[in-house]
């Protein structure tokens, strides 16, 4: 049992570990200039030092806070909107679809500059652009979930004499959940990815800003420290959503988890 667990853990992580080992060796052996690639261990050390000295954890926290805020606002808009769209008459849905698809494709970086014109360069603009980016995958996952839903299951619901509201709450929502979670995870990934870039574009706090400002000072160790932290956080965010998904849905659709 114990051994199996350990084995499983390493099976999952073996390539990550290998990657880190190769990184360490390349750097320590001098095959790659330490200036460009500091050893992984010294990057970890830098992260540790940064965390102790305080200002870095503030950057991490503010980035997380922004990402979560943008994501939550995006969810709060997308979920009602998605379900609302799905009750539109079919023809109307078809005609709004192209507009939504175009909106989804709008480049968020260009859009960011437009948003800044209206909302200034503060937190508000960041929340707007993040929630905008989060909106689309969630919206489309709901629409897809409803479109691809098993219409027979809806008929089963209807055959019990359910009211419209009961059909929606007892059948449609649980039916759409798996698809919705896929959208949520994509959105969360986008939000964090985009946030880092936005913080680089115009901000004086957060992880993106941290990396950029150290780049300007050629503080290579710190750039790597920022990059590794960002990667770990991204994995961590996905892990949290995945765990929630597993907890909520694993019993009904075992195949979607792993």
């Amino acid at each position: 049992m114990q051994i199996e667990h350990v084995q499983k853990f390493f099976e999952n992580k073996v390539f990550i570990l290998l990657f880190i080992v190769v990184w360490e060796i390349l750097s320590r052996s001098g095959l790659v200039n330490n200036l460009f690639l500091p050893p992984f261990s010294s990057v970890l050390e830098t992260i540790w030092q940064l965390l102790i000295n305080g200002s870095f954890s503030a950057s991490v926290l503010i980035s997380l806070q922004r990402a979560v805020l943008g994501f939550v606002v995006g969810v709060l808009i997308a979920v009602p909107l998605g379900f609302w769209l799905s009750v539109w008459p079919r023809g109307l849905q078809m005609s709004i679809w192209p507009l939504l698809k175009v909106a989804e494709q709008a480049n968020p970086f260009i859009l960011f500059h437009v948003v800044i014109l209206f909302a200034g360069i503060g937190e508000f603009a960041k929340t707007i652009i993040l929630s905008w980016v989060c909106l689309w995958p969630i919206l489309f996952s709901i629409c897809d979930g409803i479109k691809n839903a098993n219409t027979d299951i809806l008929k089963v619901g209807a055959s019990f004499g359910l009211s419209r509201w009961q059909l929606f709450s007892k059948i449609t929502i649980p039916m759409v959940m798996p698809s919705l979670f896929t959208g949520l995870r994509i959105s969360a990934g986008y939000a964090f990815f985009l946030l880092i870039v936005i913080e680089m574009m115009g901000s004086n706090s957060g992880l993106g800003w941290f990396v950029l400002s150290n780049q300007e000072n050629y503080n290579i160790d710190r750039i790597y420290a920022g990059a590794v932290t960002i990667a770990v956080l991204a994995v961590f965010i996905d892990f949290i959503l995945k765990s929630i998904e597993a907890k909520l849905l694993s019993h009904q659709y075992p195949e979607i988890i792993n």
Partner: protein
Amino acid sequence: MVGAIDINSVIKKFTTDDGNEITALDGVDLNIKAGEFISLIGPSGCGKSTLLRLIAGLSTPTKGTLSMDGAGIEGTSYERGLVFQNAMLFPWLNIYDNIAFGLKARNVYRKHKERVSKFINMVSLAGFEKSYPHQLSGGMIQRAGLARVLINDPKVLLLDEPLGALDAFTRMNLQDELIHLWKKEKMTMILVTHDVDEAVYLSSRIVVMTPRPAKVEKILDVNLSYPRVRSSSEFLYLRTQILKILDYAGKTEDPGYFI
């Protein structure tokens, strides 16, 4: 006794996505008495499921009327329970909640809580309350689907090939359970099946339908006492009868050539 279904000159047409019109039912007349066990049998695609859905109230006829105990059928009701092919349990609910679904939807769960375990026992699924549909076998799912409908005490039970996907043994067991249930609860049963044996084994009347557009081709009374013996000569005679009708159903014109 309640649960009589009258179907008068029902026509049902569909418009396909490319604009073609399909006539699924072309004037179906059928009077089903309360407490009968009716089997509908006919070629694939003729419109049996369509007819069942009309009786359930899931769709409306293009022409003609359907009524239950004299009142026109409008919309769905738990009084006309429909068991779908493949049972179609809700995958997000465990077996207990699937079976309790109808009670909860009608807000009578608190009052009739004990019915849930009663029906779980009836279909021999005790011990699987917490399991989810994907963890059950096909036969168990089918039984759970049956219980989920029966718990609402329907006056008419509509069964759309409920045993089609099962192995021969499970199938025969469930057939016996159906008869047992029908005798006990005295409800009207309308069963769609492809299996002629099943129809003869179970029903008091067998309705043979023509190929699409479907009409009633012939109605046969089955005057055999239960439990029926599949190898008895009367049984085999009826079976042959129906197979003959099915083979000829709709072939009104002579093909005019020989192979």
